[in-house]
């Protein structure tokens, strides 16, 4: 805020107004100033702020020169954005000239413009445009572009043309490169720290495994939660912690409530991939990782929820109704096979309206109970009623 000066709102030579907005408040960095409810005028050279009507009457107002603005961005909307006004952040350069302004010193290198009533014009676009064109700079004779630029053309046309665009693209690219290399440096530092912690956690977990020392229950639980939040997969702590966790228990209840009717409709079984998709589609924000869903499903049985996790021999995992069990599935499927004399997984899936993988699993379960036989050929896998057992010979 120390770059803002008191000034007279008379336009300079070659300066013209671009847009006007009302009910604007100025922020010094993140702090509100007393300059609120004012009129904001963006010209080709500066940004002017004045009390309502002050600028029209030519009275003193505040001005910020464009050459001090480095970068413009909109403040990203937060969760409270429906009650907050739109804000534009102007990042500023260092200022040597400490003359006449409302604030001598400032901790911040940026100011914010808060538009209480929102803004009607495209403020960010206009600001960026003006910054790029550098409309406040005086005419300079050695610009190489457009030989037909004559001296009576208004200042705003300068620094445009292909060279100007190229130059600004180059600058943008340089800025991105710089920011990325800074990012990489920060990343390496961060990773070094993380590596250290992984090593330390390894030592502690060995201690736990060998039960050396009196590491208390409480500390063990805390330690396991650290590992989980860092994403370290430690075999010592993997299973036991996850079943105790409050987070997974509440997740389990949520998922079960949400899906129980769907699972019933689908014949009592739903593959976990399907569960993952449906739950995340419903959430749309703060999605769950596959591990989260798996762990939540694991605890369902112990919580007496209507759904439980079941794993087939082939490794396929499903959520099924608690009331469903292997034998009843086998019976039901065997009856279907009998009716049609032979069934393949595709046919069963079409008939029952379930996915191919699940249909296959049902047939395999039925086979396990001896109620049907398989016929494996190049045409695919088909199942026939088990005549060895049923036909009396």
């Amino acid at each position, binding site marked *: 805020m120390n770059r803002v000066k008191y000034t007279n709102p008379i336009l300079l030579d070659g300066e013209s107004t671009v847009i006007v907005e009302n009910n604007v408040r100025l922020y010094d960095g993140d702090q509100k100033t007393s300059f609120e409810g004012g009129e904001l005028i963006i010209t080709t050279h500066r940004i002017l702020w004045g009390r309502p009507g002050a600028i029209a009457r030519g009275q003193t107002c505040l001005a910020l020169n464009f050459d001090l603005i480095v970068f413009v961005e909109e403040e990203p909307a937060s969760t409270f954005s429906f009650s907050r006004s739109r804000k534009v952040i102007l990042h500023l350069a260092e200022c040597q000239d400490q003359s006449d302004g409302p604030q001598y010193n400032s901790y911040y290198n940026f100011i914010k413009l808060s538009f209480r009533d929102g803004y009607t014009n495209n403020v960010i676009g206009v600001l960026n445009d003006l910054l790029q064109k550098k409309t406040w700079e005086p005419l300079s004779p050695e610009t190489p572009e457009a030989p037909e630029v004559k001296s009576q053309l208004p200042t705003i046309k300068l620094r445009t043309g292909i060279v100007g665009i190229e130059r600004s693209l180059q600058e943008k690219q340089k800025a991105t490169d710089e920011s990325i290399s800074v990012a990489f440096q*920060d990343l390496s530092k961060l990773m070094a720290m993380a590596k250290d*912690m992984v090593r330390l956690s390894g030592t502690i977990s060995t201690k736990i495994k060998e039960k050396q020392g009196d590491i208390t229950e409480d500390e063990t639980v805390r330690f396991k939660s650290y590992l989980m939040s860092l994403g370290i997969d430690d075999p010592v702590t993997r299973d036991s912690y996850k079943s105790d966790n409050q987070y997974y228990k509440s997740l389990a209840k949520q998922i079960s409530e949400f899906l129980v009717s769907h699972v019933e409709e689908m014949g009592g079984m739903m593959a976990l991939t399907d569960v993952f998709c449906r739950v995340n589609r419903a959430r749309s924000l703060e999605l769950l990782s596959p591990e989260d869903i798996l762990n939540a499903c694991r605890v369902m049985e112990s919580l007496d929820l209507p759904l439980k996790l079941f794993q087939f021999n082939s490794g396929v995992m499903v959520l099924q109704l608690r009331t469903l069990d292997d034998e009843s599935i086998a019976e039901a499927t065997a009856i279907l096979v009998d009716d049609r004399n032979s069934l393949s997984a595709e046919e069963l899936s079409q008939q029952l309206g379930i996915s191919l993988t699940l249909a296959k699993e049902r047939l395999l379960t039925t086979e396990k109970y001896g109620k049907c036989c398989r016929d494996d050929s190049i045409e695919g896998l088909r199942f026939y009623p088990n005549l060895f057992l049923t036909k009396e010979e």
Partner: protein
Amino acid sequence: MRRRAGLGAIQKQKLEQEKYKDKGNEIQENQFEQMTKQLEVFKINLEEFATKHKNEIRKNPEFRKQFQEMCASIGVDPLSSGKGFWSVLGIGDFYYELAVQIVEVCLATNYKNGGLIGLDELRTRLIKARGQSKQHQEISKDDLIRAAQKLKIFGSGFNVVPMGKGKYMVQSVPGELSMDHSAILQQAEKNQAFVSVSYLRRELSWEMERSQKALEHMVNQGLAWVDLQNPQEKLYYFPSLFTACVNASS
């Protein structure tokens, strides 16, 4: 101090051991304290990093890849939980949503290619499906591979199969694809999506039985179609590799 024998010495030894044990606990507790402190510092640094570079990670696939590789090298999985420390970077949502979309695309194309889709085709379809908005920033092959790998834990058969020369196929139905099968796919790719037993003998020097067994398995799985029009021998076509399939809009 001279070592003494007798009851006194034994008791003294016991006492010493106790003291050592206590000291050991103390040091260990210090270790635990140390870890807690380190974790706090790390959390703060991570949050700072996130504020500065969150956008970078979201917009720049190269950066994302680097980040993932570094995490993997120290043994940390930033995607393992939506609630972990790393969630402040906001990459979880990106990858999980990508995973959901991958499942959808695979299911939609399953009837054509039997559950095996090329990574390039997957990527093209995803980009089309995700829309033009700026939020749906560019996704790299690395992003897809990582998201697809995450789905493996469900046991429904999601798998990424490398085909050599930087090419990958994404499998979405359970079924083993042995080295032989991958080799056949590679050959088919060079030869307009089909092979025959004699072709395999020429290119790979395989015996007839070996080729036949592998090819029949793939037909069985629905990955290959048999063409009987050739007068000399059967030809085996792979829909996953058909350019017409790949370029189709549905």
